[in-house]
């Protein structure tokens, strides 16, 4: 991998919880993201994927660890340039846009505040942005309520692009959209990445979407990355039992039989993380040592492009089948 654009090192985020407990949303996460790549961050609700994105964007202050961007350490108080460089697109385009402001107002304000283009070129730039996200110029004068879900998400993406970011953090950007329009938004991300060379962190619980779009994938469970690697390595040869369970449970168009649920129970509370491997209470492969020793995120078969945090990472799924 070339020099990474973003380096996350030992990132930990804790929140105070009821009765003096501490909630570990993100627990010692180390991650590199190369310039121009799409990193898929997968996991179920509450696993910490959104918190990581918020840390990268500077919206949440980490309790420990560092975030380096373009070779520099990002401090808690970011410069305007650093904030511009990393932008978020949220899940729900119905609540992330101000209903009282026209598209022109929102985007125009950004251009003026950040002095991105001279006053007389603002209109041209606004039109260019609309073109970039595949909306007609007339959309500039609309209010969010006049647009469909897919169009609103395009507006939200245009807003992120207005400040010329280098990284887009897309937090479940197609989850609130109907299937028939999801494809157009995914296409838009592919398109933006190839045209603008954007780096994308794509957060989703939907494995099909992540497999489609990502170059590399990181799977999270209870605040930790349990498996990480090139897309095909992770999807065609998953080594963590949790990744396997997620894959088995993913909805499929042509499934004849009911999926037998592979994992028992529900994720434990991040306030009270199990000792040892945090997945062991639900894991079909767990042994005694899993309740004591927490496995580190290490290469599978010595391959640095595929890391797994499991004591049995070198067993293939055939070997693990009962």
């Amino acid at each position, binding site marked *: 991998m070339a020099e990474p654009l973003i380096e996350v090192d030992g990132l930990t985020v804790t929140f105070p919880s009821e009765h003096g407990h501490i909630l570990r949303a993100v627990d010692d996460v180390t991650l590199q993201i190369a310039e121009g790549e799409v990193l898929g961050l997968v996991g179920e609700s509450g696993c910490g994927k959104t918190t990581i994105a918020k840390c990268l964007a500077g919206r949440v202050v980490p309790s420990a660890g560092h975030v380096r961007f373009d070779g520099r350490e990002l401090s808690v108080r970011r410069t305007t340039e650093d904030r511009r460089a990393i932008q978020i697109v949220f899940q729900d385009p119905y609540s992330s846009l101000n209903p009282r402001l026209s598209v022109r107002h929102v985007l125009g304000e950004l251009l003026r505040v950040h002095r991105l283009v001279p006053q007389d070129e603002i209109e041209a730039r606004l039109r260019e942005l609309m073109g970039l996200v595949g909306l007609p110029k007339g959309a500039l004068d609309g209010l969010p309520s006049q647009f469909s879900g897919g169009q609103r998400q395009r507006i939200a993406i245009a807003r992120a692009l207005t400040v010329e970011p280098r990284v887009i953090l897309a937090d479940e950007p197609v989850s609130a959209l109907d*299937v*028939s329009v*999801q494809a157009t938004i995914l296409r838009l991300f592919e398109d933006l990445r190839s045209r603008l060379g954007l780096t994308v962190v794509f957060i989703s619980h*939907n494995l*099909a979407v992540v497999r489609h779009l990502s170059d590399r994938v990181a799977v999270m469970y209870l605040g930790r990355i349990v498996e990480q690697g090139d897309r095909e390595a992770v999807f065609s040869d998953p080594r963590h039992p949790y990744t396997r*369970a*997620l894959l088995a449970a993913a909805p499929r168009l042509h499934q004849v039989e*009911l999926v037998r649920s592979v994992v028992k129970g529900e994720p434990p509370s991040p306030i009270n993380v199990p000792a040892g491997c945090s997945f062991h209470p639900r894991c079909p492969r767990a042994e005694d040592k899993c309740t004591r020793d927490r496995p580190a995120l290490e290469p599978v078969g010595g391959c640095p492009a595929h890391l797994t945090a499991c004591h049995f990472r070198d067993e293939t799924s055939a070997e693990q089948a009962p």
Partner: protein
Amino acid sequence: MTPLLEVEGLVVEMRRHRAVFRAVDGVSFALERGGALAIVGESGCGKSITLRAIMGLLPNRGRLRSGRVIVDGTTLPADARGRGRGHHQRRRMSIVFQDALSALNPVATVGNQIAEAPRYVLGLGRRAARARAIELLGLVGIPDPDRRYHAYPHELSGGTRQRVMIAIALSSDPAILLCDEPTTALDVTIQTQILALLAELRSERGLSLVFVTHDLGVVSQVAEAVAVMYTGRFVETGPTAEVLAAPRHPYTRGLLAAALDVDSPEHEPVAIPGSLPDPLRLAGGCSFQPRCEFATGQCLTTDVRLQLVGPGHAAACLHSDVLAACQAAGHHG
């Protein structure tokens, strides 16, 4: 043998501002004892309203214009709040909603909420109702039911809340379970568990299921029959495997082409052009015609209803034979 549930020509009108539109426009189907039907469609297609109309729980701005719901040969009154003839047949049906947190009473323990129907509908005593509630908590797979009886909804996880919803639905001993996207708000590993529970209830208690979802991926897991809904109508119905493998309505075909599948990352999803029409401005002819690649002039004027295209397989499209030909020639998506 008469089917357990028959829905005939259901038409629901909804008010929006001053205007009235048809949210459900002539939906009919029959469900055998122990059978399951999945109704699939995108937001606003009328799938949830269909379920509510069957249950007699239409919102205030909705009205059942025509159509009948027949359970075991008895026609139900249009409104569940009524007390007319056939009212007791309504108890043969229960509904499970998508958002368990807002469907549950936040200030009552889940045990009391489950015990309510056994006590006041089935007429059990206090103790018997409580025992029944604990039994149901166990049945839906909640560990430690004695203790969980006293829990409040906010103390439970999303998956457990949905199990409580199912327990409440089962508490009146229904023959039919109407499910409105019961797993949409849940994580996939929990979704699998809930779907397995529903399958178990079907096979062990002979429960019939009407399952509304927007996710084509879960359809084949829950039901052997599927109905695809668009602008208030069923546009294609048939055996699930056949409809998904060889769709005969362009909308079904479009949905399949737009969907992503974990197993085929090379499949490039293709969106359906255009967007859902405004239900207040539906023109005559086929409502999918403006977005349809197969549309011809005829589609503008002909009001197509479901027509059989194979055994148990129907599509509301003038060009369903063209789709079959495309399928045969191997032009997918």
